[in-house]
């Protein structure tokens, strides 16, 4: 359940990244989403990839993105609703995580090779959507 909680937090901050109007809040939400994914890696006991995500990705790339967002765009308004929403989600996730930490761990399900086929189909779908988005952006620019 903790894995679902971490993924839900990553999804929440990903949605917040797209729908925040200020560049800095958007960049901070993106860093939070990346942090949630890094925590998910750590939960899966993949400490070397979690280290890469936390130190290299968040420590270097996210820093660059946040600084760039602060230089060009910056904070235009006081994000009261943003802070309220993120604080509520953080508190709820922390409380739920502490509650689930005491629960007996579920047995992990092994990955079947057949699971890769839908992922490949989705990947092809994303590639098609990327192509369409690229063409539309090029036509608009």
């Amino acid at each position: 359940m903790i894995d679902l909680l971490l993924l839900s937090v990553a999804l929440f901050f990903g949605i917040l990244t797209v729908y925040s109007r200020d560049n800095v809040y958007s960049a901070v939400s993106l860093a939070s989403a990346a942090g949630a994914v890094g925590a998910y890696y750590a939960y899966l006991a993949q400490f070397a990839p979690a280290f890469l995500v936390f130190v290299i990705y968040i420590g270097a790339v996210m820093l660059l993105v946040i600084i760039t967002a602060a230089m060009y765009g910056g904070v235009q308004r006081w994000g009261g609703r943003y802070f309220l929403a993120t604080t509520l989600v953080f508190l709820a996730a922390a409380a739920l995580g502490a509650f689930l930490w005491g629960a007996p761990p579920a047995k992990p399900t092994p990955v079947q090779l057949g699971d890769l086929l839908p992922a490949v189909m989705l990947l092809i779908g994303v590639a098609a959507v990327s192509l369409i988005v690229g063409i539309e952006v090029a036509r608009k620019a």
Partner: protein
Amino acid sequence: MSPAVVVGFILILLGLYSIATTRNLVRILIALELVTVGAFAALAPLASANPGLFFYGVLILVMISVSEASILAALIYRTYALTESTDVSAVAGGREP
């Protein structure tokens, strides 16, 4: 299908949507990084199947994101220096007539 794959693809599609709907270069940089975060999440099920391949996948993804972020950041700085704007529309050179 693993929940991590579903969340990853939702994040990738959100990033593509954001790229399609904005003209601000900073938002395009943020959206590209959101696509990378989605790819990180979608890669997670590989951890139990093949941890070695998973580690190298994450490593390659981090390297790709570092290079794309640095290139786009340089593009933003240069565009702002030339046009005093971060709007893609301000870049007229190289456009088809």
